[in-house]
C-alpha cells in the first residue's frame, strides 16, 4: 500500500484497482467470447478449404450475381433514405409542431417490427392479391419476387438510421447558427449547405455507412419478397443461406466473409470519426487555454 498523502481521496466510485481491473477483465473476456471469436471464425471457416477454393467460390456465377444485385439494391436504397433522414431530422429538430413526438415514434417502427412482418406487409399490399398489387398485375407490372420489391422492403427496414444519427446531434447543436445565417441573409439552400451541412457532416456520413451496412445485409424482409430465384432475385445474404443449407459451408462462409468485411469497414469508419472528433475537441480546448494565457 502506498502511503502518499491524499492518494486515497481522488478515487471515484468503482476506481479501486481491485474492482476496476476485475470489471475490465470480465468485460474483455465476455467480449472476446461473444463477439471477437465469432468474428474470427467467419474468416476461419471461409478459408478452411484453402485460399484457392475461397476465391473460386466467390467467382462462381450465382455468387457474382448475388453480389451485383446486393450492391444495386444498396445503391438505390441509400440515397432515398439519405434524403428522407435529412428532411425528417430538419423538420423535428428545427420546428415545433403538434404531433412532433408522434412523428419521432413512427420513425422507429422499422426498428420494432420484425423483418418478416415487414416483408409480409409489402407482399400483402403489392403482391398479386393485394389491392395495389392486383391493379399493378393488370398493368403487367410485377414488384414482388423481383428487384423492385427487394428495394422497397430494404428502404423500409433501413429508413430510420440516418435520422437516428442526425437528430440527437442537431438537437444538441441548437438553432442559433442557422438563425444567425438567416439574419445575415442566407437563402434556404445556402443555409443548409454552408452552415448546417458542415456541422452534421460526420454524423451524416456515418448514418449513410450504417444504412448501407444494413441494406446490404437485410435478410428476413428480403427473403419474404424475393422468391429466392437463384441467379435472379438472390441477394448475398440469401445466397449465404442457400449455400449453407446446401451443405457448402465453406462457400457460404466465403460469401459471409464479404458481408463481414463491410461490417468491419463500417466499425472502423465509426471509430475513425470518433477519434477525429475527439482530436478536434481537444485542439479547440487547447487553443482556448492558449488564448486564456
Amino acid at each position, binding site marked *: 500500500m502506498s502511503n502518499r*498523502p491524499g492518494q486515497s481521496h481522488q478515487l471515484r466510485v468503482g476506481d479501486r484497482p481491485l474492482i476496476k481491473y476485475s470489471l475490465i477483465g470480465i468485460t474483455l473476456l465476455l467480449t472476446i467470447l461473444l463477439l471477437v471469436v465469432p468474428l474470427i471464425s467467419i474468416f476461419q471457416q471461409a478459408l478452411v478449404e484453402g485460399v484457392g477454393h475461397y476465391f473460386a467460390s466467390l467467382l462462381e456465377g450465382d455468387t457474382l450475381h448475388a453480389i451485383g444485385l446486393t450492391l444495386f439494391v444498396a445503391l438505390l436504397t441509400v440515397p432515398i433514405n439519405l434524403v428522407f433522414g435529412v428532411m425528417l431530422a430538419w423538420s423535428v429538430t428545427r420546428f415545433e409542431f403538434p404531433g412532433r413526438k408522434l412523428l419521432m415514434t413512427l420513425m422507429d417502427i422499422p426498428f420494432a417490427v420484425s423483418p418478416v412482418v415487414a416483408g409480409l406487409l409489402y407482399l400483402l399490399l403489392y403482391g398479386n392479391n393485394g389491392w395495389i398489387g392486383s391493379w399493378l398485375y393488370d398493368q403487367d407490372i410485377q414488384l414482388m419476387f423481383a428487384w423492385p420489391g427487394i428495394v422497397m422492403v430494404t428502404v423500409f427496414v433501413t429508413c430510420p438510421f440516418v435520422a437516428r444519427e442526425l437528430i440527437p446531434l442537431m438537437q444538441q447543436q441548437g438553432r442559433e447558427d442557422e438563425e444567425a445565417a438567416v439574419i445575415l441573409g442566407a437563402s434556404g439552400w445556402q443555409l443548409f449547405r454552408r452552415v448546417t451541412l458542415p456541422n452534421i457532416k460526420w454524423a451524416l456520413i456515418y448514418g449513410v455507412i450504417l444504412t448501407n451496412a444494413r441494406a446490404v445485409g437485410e435478410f428476413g424482409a428480403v427473403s419474404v419478397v424475393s422468391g429466392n430465384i437463384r441467379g435472379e432475385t438472390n441477394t448475398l445474404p440469401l445466397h449465404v443461406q442457400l449455400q449453407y443449407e446446401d451443405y457448402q459451408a465453406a462457400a457460404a462462409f466465403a460469401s459471409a466473409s464479404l458481408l463481414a468485411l463491410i461490417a468491419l469497414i463500417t466499425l472502423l469508419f465509426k471509430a475513425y470519426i470518433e477519434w477525429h472528433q475527439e482530436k478536434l475537441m481537444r485542439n479547440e480546448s487547447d487553443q482556448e487555454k492558449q488564448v486564456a494565457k
Partner: protein
Amino acid sequence: MSILIDNISKHFGSFQALSPLSLDINEGEMIGLLGPSGSGKTTLLRIIAGLEGADSGRIQFGDRDVTNLHVRDRRVGFVFQNYALFRHMTVADNVAFGLEVLPKSKRPNAAAIRKRVMHLLDMVQLGHLAQRFPSQLSGGQKQRIALARALATQPEVLLLDEPFGALDAKVRKELRRWLRGLHDELGFTSVFVTHDQEEALELSDRVVVMSNGHIEQIDQPGDLYASPNSRFVFDFLGNANVFDAQFSQGKWQNNVASLQLPDEAPKTAGQIYLRSHEFHVSSVATEQAFLPLKVVAINLIGAEVRLELTPIDWHSDHIWEVDLPHKAFDKHCFEKGQTVFVTPKAGYFFANGQATPQPVYW
C-alpha cells in the same frame, strides 16, 4: 471545530494549483476564501473536504489528523456550487440521505429520520416543498435544500463552494444574511469560496485573499480594506487608479502630470494606488497635484456619480474612475468631454521593486 492547514500543496499535471500554504481556522469562525478564478481557492476547499488529495502537507480538524482520511469519514458538510442535489430523489429524500447511509448501529429509526428532516426543512423555511423534486425548485430554494442536506448529519465543519454564485442579486443578499444567522446560531466552523469581494467582506470573520495558488493576505474585512499588503490585494478589492511615477525635481512625475510628495514619503520612483472615492475633483489644478484628465463618461451608480477619465498628455494603462457624491457633482456640473483636475486625499505608494505599500496622506 478548529481547522489546521499545514504546508498544503497541489499540482495538476504541470500546473501548480497550490504552492505550499498554511492557514489556521478557529472554532466557530467563518472564513471567506477570496480570489479570481484559477487562484486555487476551490482546490483548497476541496482538499479540506477530502474530495481532492494534497501532494504534501497535513490537515487537522481539532486534534484529529484527517490528512489520509477518506472524504466519507471526515464528517464535513459540503455545499456544491451547482448544489448537486440528487435529481431523482424528492427534497425530503435528499435531506434524509446522509442519515440513511449511516451504519446500522448509528442510524436513527425511520420515524426519527423523518422528524429530523422535517425539522431541517422548517429551519430552511421550505417544509412545504418536502415532496417536490429538485427540478421544480428555484435556485434559492435549491441552495437552501443543499444546505439542509449538508447539515443533516450535524457536521462541525461546513464548506461552501461559491454558495451564491448562481443566484440573482436580491436573492443572494437575503441568503447571505440568512446563512450568517444560521452560522452564528448553530456554531459550526464555516469556510466558503467566492470571487465576489463584497460577499467576502460582508460575510466573513476573516478573509483569505488568494492568487496563483498563494495566500496573499489573511485579515478581518475592515483591516483588509484599510491596509492591503500587496498590489494584488489592492487591485482585487475595490477600483484602484494607478499613477506610475518618476521621481524628479522633488515631485512624482509622469510626463506633464505631477504630484507633490507628502511628508515622510520615500523620495523614489514607484506606483501610487489611489481609490476612486478618495479624490477632490475640480476644473482647476491645485498646488498639490497637476493631474489633467478628460471626462469620457458619467455614470450614476446609486448614491454616487462615477466619472470615467482619460489622462491628457500623460500616461496610464487604464481608464481612471473617480466617485463623487451627488452633491459635489451637482455643484460642478461636469460634462462629457470637459477637462478636469483631480487631487488625491490619500493613497498607497509601492516603491519600485517593493511588494508592500506605504500609506501616504496629503
